[in-house]
């Protein structure tokens, strides 16, 4: 999507917050995040608070209360303001609203944003002492042990990136779920879960090899609730964390 709309949502300090009771999944919110970062963040900023007096994360809107009204707003824009109409499908608008609604519960920066990151220094850390490429891929290079970070800045808020660096296991997205299986001959197989049911597991291992495992051929398996990623809380200084976050936020290329 070529930035079809810079969605200047107009907020107000008044107006009842209205969460409608229909179902929203984490996958909806993640899809909505990608739409937000592609279509909205250039004006609203990655945290949704770049425009003075407008903080999307507050979830309080002057011109919209219900999800239907918010959906209408992101599609039609606000005449007379820089907020243009957005050419979204029903599903895209739904996901975008789900993401915007989710921001009230999203992690806040531990530093409160008081430490601006230097992306050049962050790049040096990512490629140097952070050794991030040992597990992650950047521009087609690196390992399949962890998620591809080539476009991570186009789908994560800085506060989320910071939280992940400090406490990787606090929240694991379903498409990054680590899996560990032990074959009956004792061979240990680790990787990222792609799909599973009662009888089989589909995963990708650290080399990028897709592997289908038949559960009756395994001694055991576990879908891990902790991330294999180490915390950088004691490995990097607060400034270095801010620098890495600053750099990761610039990564918006399509994966190669």
């Amino acid at each position, binding site marked *: 999507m070529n930035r079809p709309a810079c969605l200047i949502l107009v907020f107000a300090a008044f107006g009842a917050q209205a969460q409608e009771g229909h179902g929203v999944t984490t996958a909806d919110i993640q899809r909505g995040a990608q739409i937000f970062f592609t279509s909205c963040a250039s004006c609203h900023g990655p945290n949704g608070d770049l425009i003075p007096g407008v903080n999307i994360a507050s979830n309080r809107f002057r011109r919209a209360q219900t999800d239907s009204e918010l959906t209408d707003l992101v599609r039609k824009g606000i005449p007379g303001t820089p907020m243009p109409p957005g050419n979204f499908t029903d599903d895209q608008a739904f996901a975008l609203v789900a993401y915007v609604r989710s921001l009230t519960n999203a992690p806040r920066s531990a530093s409160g944003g008081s430490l601006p990151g230097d992306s050049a220094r962050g790049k040096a850390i990512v490629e140097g002492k952070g050794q991030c490429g*040992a597990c992650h891929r950047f521009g*087609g290079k690196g390992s*399949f042990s962890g998620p591809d970070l080539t476009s991570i800045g186009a789908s994560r808020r800085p506060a989320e990136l910071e939280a992940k660096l400090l406490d990787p296991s606090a929240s694991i997205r379903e498409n990054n779920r680590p899996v560990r299986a032990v074959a009956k001959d004792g061979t240990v197989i680790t990787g990222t879960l792609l799909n*599973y049911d009662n009888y089989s597991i589909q995963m*990708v*291992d650290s*080399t990028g090899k897709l592997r*289908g495992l*038949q559960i009756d051929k395994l001694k055991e398996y576990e879908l891990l609730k902790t991330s294999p990623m180490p915390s950088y809380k004691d490995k990097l200084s607060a400034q270095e964390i801010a620098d890495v976050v600053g750099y990761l936020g610039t990564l918006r290329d399509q994966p190669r």
Partner: protein
Amino acid sequence: MIARFLLLMLPGALLLTAQVPFDRILQADREPQNWLTYSGNVNGERYSQLTQITPANAKNLELKWVLQSRAPAESGSKYEATSLVVDGVLYTVQPPNVVVAVDAVSGRIFWTHPYSPVAAARACCGRVNRGLAILGNTLFMGTIDGNLVALDARDGHQIWIVPVGRPEAGYSVTVAPLIVKDKVIAGPAGGEYGISGFLAAYDPATGKELWRFNTIPRPGEPGNDTWAGQSWVHGGGSIWTTGSFDPALNTLYWGVGNASPDWNGTVREGDNLYTSSVIALDPDTGKLKWHFQFTPHDEFDFDSTQVPVLADANWQGRPRKLLMLANRNGYFYVLDRMTGEFLLGKPFVKVTWAAGLDAKGRPIRVGHSTPDGMVIYPENQGGTNWYNPAYSPRTGLFYIPSWMDTHSINTSRNDEYREGNMYGGGTATHEMPGIRAGPINRRLTDSGFGAIQAVDPNTGDVRWQFKMVDVTDSGVLATASDLVFAGSREGYFYALDARTGAMLWKAMTGGQISAGPVTYSVDGKQYVSVPAGNDLFTFGLRE
């Protein structure tokens, strides 16, 4: 902790190697558990060395899994893709261009890659895709809107996309690309829209075009003088199906589509090279080594879209390097693939457009498309078409999905070329549904029927024929246990005895079979997989 963690992960990082280098494709017969290229190997045989499923136990085949299409079928779409199988992962293309990576044992999905063709896409003959190619960790797919796409086989993300031809002018890419050494070979379809065809080689890393062979030669290129005036400009010459490669001769063989406009030959006097031909090219440069034209000055829509099958065999008592091709024009041909010399040509269905072939294989033409219409056998869909044949070196037989005794009334007219519009120059009226058959058939077999036929390449004689009431768009698979697998429009999927044609097993899939079957094995268990209707069906032996 971080040091230990990195130590654990680094070996994985170092193992990021290409999973399918070209050597594996070249020597695909050494790993029959996989299906690494469109025809199973580069020689086009579609013959598997797997022998667990035999004529004796084929009756014990049962359904193992079905992969259903996730979206409602589009109008005109048809599931024609040959799957690839790499080390337990099956890759397929659901129409029109949705790529899916599937656990080959369970049918469960690893990843999907959606692709939405632009609205300008034009497809005369179905919004179809015939499959993928793989090299290293990259999958290659043509799209119905004229692009070539590279995807990462590990997670399905798009690496590059390049235009092959403009969809507004009718260019589409339905062919499964062929990997030859370090090149991706493909070309556009769209002859019915008056394209000017070509076969091209692309860089697997970037999509950059490395060479192009014009199937419709430009002024100054050999063969342009076989087109009257400027008729070459919209001369057709589509690429519809995958070619073959002989590494010892370093030669690429590819079938070329019909001339445009299809039925009106009066506006393009001449032989109209290289339409309705097989071309032999140097795969490093795209230079022509030789060609053989099956239907000079075609007026019947007789594309040579069939897979050229390469075999080294004792032919009429003498070892020869053969190229065999069952042509849409109704003749089965055997050529010497070193030189293009015509060795044999014999009809495998009823043929009336030619009275025979001369000593050099040129047809003795007796039929034409005319303004008043002329009845021509076979009909314009041909004696066979894009659906692949198979050849078994064990039985020495060539297996052809055949449309028996069909005819059409071929009528010519003057059509003006207008970009993006059909440029047929006439029409063919026939009794068989052309692209997508409905579920009900009441036609008498007098007007034509389907068959899998086994032909002896030494004589062109039909050794056996397995008849079906309706015609068939299914490809054929042969195995080293002397089985032949093929399907029907009715939805039956058959295992036949490769030596006698006896039916050993059948399953009703409930949908038209319009693709070539593949076979593979995982953990020592052999499977046979074929698309039918909108879904992919995979069978194995009952345990």
